[in-house]
């Protein structure tokens, strides 16, 4: 009686410790779920879910294929061009909206509309205009990522203290000097936040764009693997895409912490 109570208590503690381990270390959590996946895959309940070990081999195969590297190159290319354009065009537009009431009136509604609009639905409409290729994917990346750059830059600019701008005027700065020496540095923390969020959205955009088009890049590969029922490769590709996204987002967060050091000193 007492003994069984004790053993129950022990298992409870073990469960508790296990849960704690999972929570504190993402590594162990990852290992655990990988194990669950392997088990379910081995049992063969679902054709769609091959065992994880099989995917591991598919992963190696994938990296040997030129189709994969072509898709990778295309993704990297469209992602960088699209994101680059979003930042280079988005920041000046955000500054313009932030300092000019008229620009704010004309443009802000559209920016806010697109910020929350389901962009994915627009992609099929882009295809006939831009063709099936880089241009459409780049456009998708821009449509996903530019709005948040604009909004955050604008927020940063409008929150710049009036007295700082007045200080610039008192000392005879030109409008351009006020923008470059005062407004932009003061808005930098918000601008950087906008850029970080836009990277996350651009990652989504580049993948979603390719998948909706379904004929090029990773989208084409996904499509091929699914139609030939190469589930191992399909999953391997998904994991590659996830790892890529996390790596890029992680890098950006690292960068943000470096640059925005003075954000809390304002």
């Amino acid at each position: 009686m007492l003994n069984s109570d004790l053993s129950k208590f022990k298992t409870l503690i073990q469960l508790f410790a296990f849960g704690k381990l999972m929570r504190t270390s993402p590594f162990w959590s990852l290992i655990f779920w990988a194990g669950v996946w392997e088990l379910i895959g081995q049992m063969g309940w679902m054709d769609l879910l091959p065992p994880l070990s099989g995917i591991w081999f598919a992963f190696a195969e994938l990296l040997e294929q030129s189709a994969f590297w072509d898709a990778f190159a295309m993704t990297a290319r469209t992602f960088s061009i699209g994101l680059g354009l979003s930042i280079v065009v988005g920041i000046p537009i955000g500054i313009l909206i932030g300092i000019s009431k008229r620009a704010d009136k004309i443009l802000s509604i559209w920016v806010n509309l697109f910020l929350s609009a389901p962009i994915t639905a627009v992609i099929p409409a882009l295809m006939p205009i831009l063709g099936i290729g880089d241009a459409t994917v780049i456009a998708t990346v821009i449509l996903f990522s530019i709005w948040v750059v604009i909004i955050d830059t604008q927020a940063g600019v409008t929150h710049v203290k009036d007295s700082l701008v007045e200080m610039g005027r008192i000392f005879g700065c030109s409008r351009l000097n006020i923008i470059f020496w005062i407004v932009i540095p003061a808005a930098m923390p918000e601008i950087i936040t906008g850029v970080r969020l836009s990277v996350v959205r651009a990652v989504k955009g580049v993948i979603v764009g390719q998948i909706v088009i379904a004929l090029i890049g990773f989208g084409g590969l996904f499509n091929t693997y699914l139609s030939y029922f190469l589930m191992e490769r399909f999953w391997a590709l998904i994991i590659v895409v996830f790892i890529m996204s996390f790596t890029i987002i992680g890098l950006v967060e690292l960068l943000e912490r470096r640059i925005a050091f003075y954000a809390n000193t304002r």
Partner: protein
Amino acid sequence: MKKVGGLSDIILKTEGVGVTYQESIVALKNVSLNVPTAKLTAILGPSGCGKTTLLKVIAGLIEPTKGKVIVGGKEIIGPGPDRALVFQDFALLPWATVLQNVAFGLRARGVPKKEREETSLHYIRQVGLLGFEDKYPHQLSGGMRQRTGLARALTINSDILLMDEPFSAVDEQMRRKLQEDLLKLLKIESKTVIFVTHSIEEAVYLADQVVILSGRPGSIADIVYPEIDRLGEVDLIRRQPGYIELVDEIWSSLKRYVE
């Protein structure tokens, strides 16, 4: 106290200045004021009566709805190198060091780096901040930040120094120290100072001319000329005969505007 019309030459005057915000909020009404050269003029008045507005009009940051500001015989059309402003909230760039902040005005004028740093260091020493030139504003106390703002205003060597409640954001002891230092500094640098204050004591202690504004809309209620001898030691100013009486006199004329 005798009312002195011509303390000395008039460097700056406002003629019938009125400011209306957003077409309905009348902040200032018909303010005509003479500011004598190389003297301290204090603007005193109840909260929200338009003191900051008046100072910004004089600085050229706000265009008056009515009237004009004349400096050295010419009507102003905006900020100019003849007037420097010290801000109530310091208006320092948080990402720039003390040296860079102080040198900002000279940089805006295109003074070469070496020269502007030399000039800036001179004024950093004068306001007692030597050794702190590489610190950032958030590493400084309120008093040191205000000294930085003052040094920045001094670098451009304007004849007129405008200060908006320069000592209100620091504690009592620091305020006294800053006030004394300002008087000492003005013995070296000959400047015309116009400063806004809430404090009657501060006005009497520092100013040659105290302009009392009525409650909103601000207009001139009275002008007082404290005839206090500032040539001697700074410590002695508060102990001069007439100091307390003057504080009382100003309070009785100000009282009716304070709810």
